[in-house]
């Protein structure tokens, strides 16, 4: 597992892994699209708009997962002096930001026919919007510092301070009385979703994760190269 914290080993593992992951992501994504558009039933109330869920839920999960990964790597980088964490922080932040943006936009496309409005000031929606702003600030911080050593540590500290928002996003539907529905799929109980809708959801989640992983591997490799040649 050393390739998770060592840039050289990561490079070797990435060269080995990227083609299978790319092929897997293409297969999974086309399979997921097929399932979510043709092989899954319409909802008896929502009609065809339920298909937005197959984009909305995976991107929301992955936005949270990306931030959690960044938090773990920031702790590793600051506490155990593993510089690979800074590389991850720089490379992965835009991917998480894009996932959050996809989540917000698809959610508001669903909200217009179902709730009657593009946006409500609901706890879940607001905290996800704040997550998006935090991602934007991380990206801008990466762009606006001259000195690389200062920049990467300051970004790591900001990621740690901003991780307060993660439990707020996760538990906002339980703590407050929100319009957004609480979690349907949880680890502790049987999921409240029919298998015919759960299968496309799971496939789309893995497809999104694989696509994100391909982009992340490419970005991390670019970052390693630019650090080796002292460009960034």
């Amino acid at each position, binding site marked *: 597992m050393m390739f998770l914290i060592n840039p050289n080993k990561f490079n070797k593992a990435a060269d080995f892994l990227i083609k299978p992951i790319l092929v897997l992501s293409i297969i999974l994504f086309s399979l997921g699209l097929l399932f979510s558009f043709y092989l899954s039933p319409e909802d008896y109330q929502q009609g065809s708009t339920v298909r937005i869920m197959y984009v909305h839920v995976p991107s929301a999960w992955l936005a949270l997962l990306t931030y959690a990964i960044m938090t773990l790597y920031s702790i590793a980088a600051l506490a155990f002096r593993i510089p690979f964490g800074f590389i991850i922080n720089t490379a992965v932040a835009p991917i998480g930001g894009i996932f959050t943006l996809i989540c917000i936009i698809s959610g508001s496309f669903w909200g217009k026919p179902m709730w009657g409005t593009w946006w409500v000031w609901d706890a879940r929606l607001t905290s996800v919007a*704040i997550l998006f*702003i*935090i991602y934007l*600030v991380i990206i*801008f*911080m990466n*762009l*606006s*510092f*001259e*000195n690389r*050593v*200062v*920049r990467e*540590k*300051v970004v790591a*500290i*900001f990621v740690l*301070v*901003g991780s307060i928002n993660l439990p707020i996003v996760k538990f906002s539907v339980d703590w407050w009385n929100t319009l957004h529905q609480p979690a349907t799929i949880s680890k502790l109980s049987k999921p409240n979703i029919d298998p015919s809708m759960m299968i496309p959801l799971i496939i789309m989640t893995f497809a999104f994760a694989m696509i994100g992983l391909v982009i992340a591997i490419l970005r991390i490799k670019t970052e390693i190269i630019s650090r080796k040649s002292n460009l960034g």
Partner: protein
Amino acid sequence: MKFLNKIVSFYYREYKLNLSGLQDILTNIIFFFISIFIFIFSIGPDRETISLIGVGILWTLLLLSSTLSLRKFYQDDFENGNLLITHLNGFSFGFIAILKTFSHFLFVQIPFLLSIPIACILLNIVNDKLIYLFISFSIGSLILSCLGSISSSMNLMNQRNFLLGSVIVMIFSIPVIIFSVGIINMEENFNSLINILFGILLIVFAINPWASGLCLKLSLENN
């Protein structure tokens, strides 16, 4: 005793500096009042509406005008080398952050606190609410000072994009705004909300020396 003397002389220096730069603090307060006027011009002079949203306006403006003075928080001391000299005198960076936070609270936020009664008259807020407003303001402005310390120490080496510091303060001040405006509008559960606000203050106060101290050390090492 020697340590106490050092702290007293630190605050004496801050007092002298702020006294000579009194026009900066006064400009901040003028900004605060002008913004109230602008708000009232844009909303309209209806007394009912103004008293309904007055507390929210006051909090927003306090936040905006305290972010205006963030640039001076560490920047001057950092550039003329005073931060390093204070550190060489036996203060750790975290302790410097705590001292500077209290200094910011004393010399920048207290003038706002003093000008709140006048703003309340302008915004038609009834006198009964003034005491709640005062308590929530004094806790909330200490939280804002801590957040300002974190964000301005993060941005010491950032020469290009200083507005980022204000954005950072605004992101983390959202819970403060939510709970402190709630205090005014829901007087029956005043105690629970003030406890939550106090809890936020303790969390931020614990994070502040760690984060600001680390950022100060980084900036001084790499300058």
